């Protein structure tokens, strides 16, 4: 069903122009947060209003859209955003990473490397990496202007002093092209190395009214110390459904007696591997011929 009453991709043209101008400046100054006049969307803040506005400003009728939530195509947030654009932009949708031209994501980067012709749009809750260290926007803006990031290193150092290692596991801060410290959105730090990508990466924070971007092949370095180098960690396990030993895993509680299993968080990646015949420790027994 199409909704002819809406403009293409829901937003009005003036709003799209405003977002598009912000996107171009975001690409021109990688990692810098461009303020934009975020609109009310027909979904609550926290459900991807920033990502949806960026996606709406980028979509063309020829696009094939994929939406994931923590790697999964089939969760409420992903399904409803996909349906939203099926209705308002009449674009094709897909669950296959390789077939998608625009991918909107909440908190994961797909396992399969992205390439030219693909745009990854992140939903961002708190775009300011320094916000939990300094609550005042006037101050954090000055800190970015002066490239004053000592506080972030103190935070990471205190992590080490308290825990023996940097305990930040997601939204792990990065430095972009040696200039701006950026919050990569709450992706697991396992995904950080893949922020250096051949695809265009755009970040939208609706409630906080910020847009930022990484052009392809931009240098993105996770902050660390010489004696405590950055480590892209994951659960020390193989996927129990497809057997993959290198993908990011979700822990799933299976009963009330301590039973659990680990499965790929990227559902498309896991399903493709299973379709190719890969099996994990807890895969259902195949029927014998």
């Amino acid at each position, binding site marked *: 069903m199409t909704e002819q009453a809406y403009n293409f991709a829901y937003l009005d043209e003036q709003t799209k*122009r405003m977002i*598009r101008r912000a*996107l171009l400046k975001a690409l021109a100054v990688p990692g810098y947060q461009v303020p934009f006049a975020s609109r009310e969307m027909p979904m609550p803040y926290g459900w991807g209003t920033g990502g949806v506005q960026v996606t709406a400003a*980028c979509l063309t009728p020829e696009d094939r859209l994929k939406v994931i939530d923590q790697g999964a195509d089939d969760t409420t947030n992903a399904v409803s955003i996909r349906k939203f654009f099926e209705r308002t932009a009449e674009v094709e949708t897909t669950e296959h990473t390789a077939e998608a031209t625009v991918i909107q994501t909440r908190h994961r980067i797909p396992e399969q490397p992205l390439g030219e012709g693909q745009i990854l749009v992140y939903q961002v809750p708190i775009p300011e990496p320094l916000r939990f260290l300094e609550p005042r926007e006037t101050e954090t803006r000055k800190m*970015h202007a*002066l490239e004053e990031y000592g506080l972030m290193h103190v935070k990471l150092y205190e992590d080490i002093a308290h825990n023996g290692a940097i305990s930040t596991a997601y939204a792990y801060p990065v430095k972009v092209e040696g200039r*701006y410290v950026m919050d990569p959105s709450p992706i697991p730090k396992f995904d950080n190395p893949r922020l250096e990508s051949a695809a265009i990466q755009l970040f939208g924070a609706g409630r906080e009214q910020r847009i930022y971007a990484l052009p392809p092949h*931009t240098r993105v370095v996770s902050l660390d110390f010489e004696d405590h180098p950055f480590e892209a960690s994951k659960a020390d396990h193989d996927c129990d459904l497809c057997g993959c030993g290198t993908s990011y895993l979700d822990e799933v509680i299976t009963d009330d007696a301590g039973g659990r299993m680990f499965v790929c968080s990227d559902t498309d990646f896991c399903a493709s591997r299973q379709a190719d015949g890969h099996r994990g420790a807890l895969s259902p027994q195949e029927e014998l011929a």
Partner: protein
Amino acid sequence: MMSADVMNGNVLTGGFADAPVQAARAFRAALEAMARPGRIETVEGAEAPGISTAAAVLLLTLCDRETPIHLAPGCDGAALKRWIAFHIGAPVVAAEEAMFALGGWQALKPLDRYRIGTAEYPDRSVMLIVEVESLESAGMKLTGPGIESEAALNLPEVEAFARNGLLFPLGWDCYFTAQDRLAALPRTTKVEAL
């Protein structure tokens, strides 16, 4: 090719026939160009008196009443001003106040008049739309974000871009337009003569 209507100064024509979809396709081309400096994209769907199709498409896609435009000598004819007033509604202003500036490379100079943003808001800077004779992937060597190893583009000079690069994170960004083709050069791109 420019239609007779636009040539004869009928400023009511030359806009997008289907604005939401044509602007979306044009923006994707502009986005790809800005994300991958030096890449040449082709656009269509607009024509304005005295300027290239690509420049007209960029104006329609990015500008509105909220974006003051500076028209450099050679691109400041009465017909174009009327076309902008009708299709875009943007105020035409002096170089110092402009969010967008349109013109030939020499006509746009001196470049230090334009807004380069502030330390706290480097995005508050001008976007130059530079009309050139032709665009080819040859000439100057480009490196920087958006470029895997290196790219090439026929740019009018090296020095202005080097000086702009020193201002980073401040600085201006630009599109180059010729006929229906456009390429972009953000402030991060390093330009060297081959």
